[in-house]
């Protein structure tokens, strides 16, 4: 996350086109060809708009992750009541016995 790499990535942005299929795969959303086309266009446009921030010199600027600085918000190690299983499993799209059931997992899903 040093400024060197930041600069390099920004320089490369203009020539990059968003790989919508790859991103959709990461986000686990199936897209139709029409959506690939449409979203690709819209997101490309949006990226052009957001690229204005690359003009700002932020080399010495810290990143804001939290607007109100706060530290060490921790809970005591105490057990609290859980939800009852009937409620939990009543939400399940598919349950089997005491479990949630999902279709087969293919290793790459991890």
């Amino acid at each position, binding site marked *: *996350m040093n400024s060197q*790499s*930041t600069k390099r*990535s*920004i320089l*490369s*942005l203009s020539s990059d086109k*968003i790989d*919508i299929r790859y*991103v*959709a795969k*990461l*986000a*686990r*959303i*199936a*897209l139709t060809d029409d*959506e690939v086309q449409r*979203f690709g266009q*819209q*997101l490309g*446009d*949006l*990226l052009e*708009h*957001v*690229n*204005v*921030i*690359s003009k*700002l010199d*932020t080399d010495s*600027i*810290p*990143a*804001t*992750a*939290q*607007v*109100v600085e*706060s530290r060490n*918000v921790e*809970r005591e190690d105490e057990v609290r009541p859980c*939800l009852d299983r009937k*409620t*939990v499993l009543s*939400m*399940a*799209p*598919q349950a089997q016995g005491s479990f*949630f059931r*999902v*279709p*087969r*997992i*293919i290793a*790459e*899903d991890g």
Partner: protein
Amino acid sequence: MSTVERSGVDVARAVNAREISAREVTDATLGQIDAVDERLGAYLTRLHDMARAAADRVDARIAGGEKLAMAGVPVAVKDNMCLAGTRTTCGSKILENWIAPYTGTAVQRILDAGGIPVGKSNMDEFAMGSSCENSALLQTRNPLDLSRVPGGSSGGSAAAVSAHLAAVGLGSDTGGSIREPGAFCGVVGFKPTYGRVSRYGLIAFASSLDQIGPLTRTVEDAALAYDVMAGYDPMDSTSIDRPLEPTFSALRDDLRGKRIGIVKEFETGKLGAAIDAVYKQAYRDLEKLGAELIEVSLPTADYGLATYYLIAPAECSSNLARFDGVRYGLRVEGNDVGEMYEATRAAGFGPEVKRRILIGTYALSSGYYDAYYVKAQKVRTLIGDDFKKAFATCDLIACPAASSPAFVSGAKSDPYSMYLMDYYTIPMSLAGLPALSVPCGSVSVEGKSVPMGLQLCAPIFAERELLSAAHAYEKATMHYKNNKLDVSLHRAPTGNLV
């Protein structure tokens, strides 16, 4: 004044004084909802039984000698807030039938204070939108002009409050989602400092920006609801653990000694002569109340939109991963888990949600993280610094609450033109500042009067100052009194509106 038109403060006073029962207020409100919401579409779910039961409990507590801050006040709960036993959809097909098994902190505090949940209000899907048109489940109309949008994403709560279907509407604001619909519907929309109100039980859009706040017809009601909801919550690590000063009791009638910053970069001339005139008048009114107007500069505010459309989608791409068809909500079957995920999320999310998940995923992905996400977080620092500099010379900032008044449904088909609606509200969100919109007049469009909102913004934690100033302005101008509900609202359903 009819029961449903009473302010929240007035209802609570009357119920505590046993002039009227919570049950009577509730029944009147539910009656009004049943009479007009078919055409308005403010509520996704009406909570007749729960509201009546809650009202009876409040009446019993009052009878037992208790005093409750929000006794009998009818409340619209935005449908991204969990309320145990109610359908909580987030305006999305993916949660269309999900019943929340728990109640979020802010809602619980409202209930404990005697507030009555009359319904779950419509919203842009997952709070992404500025017109409520992104709801996958219902169309909400602007009660002042049914052809127009109510704004968004808290459009249902804004419409409900404006149409007297609740005294208090709970909203959530990520980039303007309380303030903009407030402006569109001619009501007050108040976003507190980030972290003032617990997010526990608020379905996340962008965690570092989301903040719950009230939509009300008066500033007093906003202060009332805020005082009830605000305060540290051990269930939300980002909620602020510092003393809370009550705002309601500190509301003033004047602005003497206050320096109000007018943002140089937010010159309203570019919004058109009519709009410009409304804001210029509003600034003059502030001056008349004793405030000193000072020009301030927010040079990086113009980068707010770009910054926001990297940070908010990045966070949302991660926050919305959990909607995967495994534990709750919609599932579309597939041959394996991967197919199931992709089919579920393809069917469950609408186009705007998909766009934001995709852009956010991209902004966080390998090779782009520094250039987009980290860069945006740094610009966020710059924007915050600009506000700090400005607040060194002024107590409050005044500017427009939205780029335009409420527009006609379907008018903004291009996503980016919709994003521009939040141009004036996003910088405050990025800086975590408390800000509100208060009615400041109207413009005449096609012979109809469409309300406008003035945005006031204060330094972090200065809710008291902010609400006090807004109250003084409201009291002096009374613009909300000019709101006229669309005459078609009370007509028999014609079919073509719904």
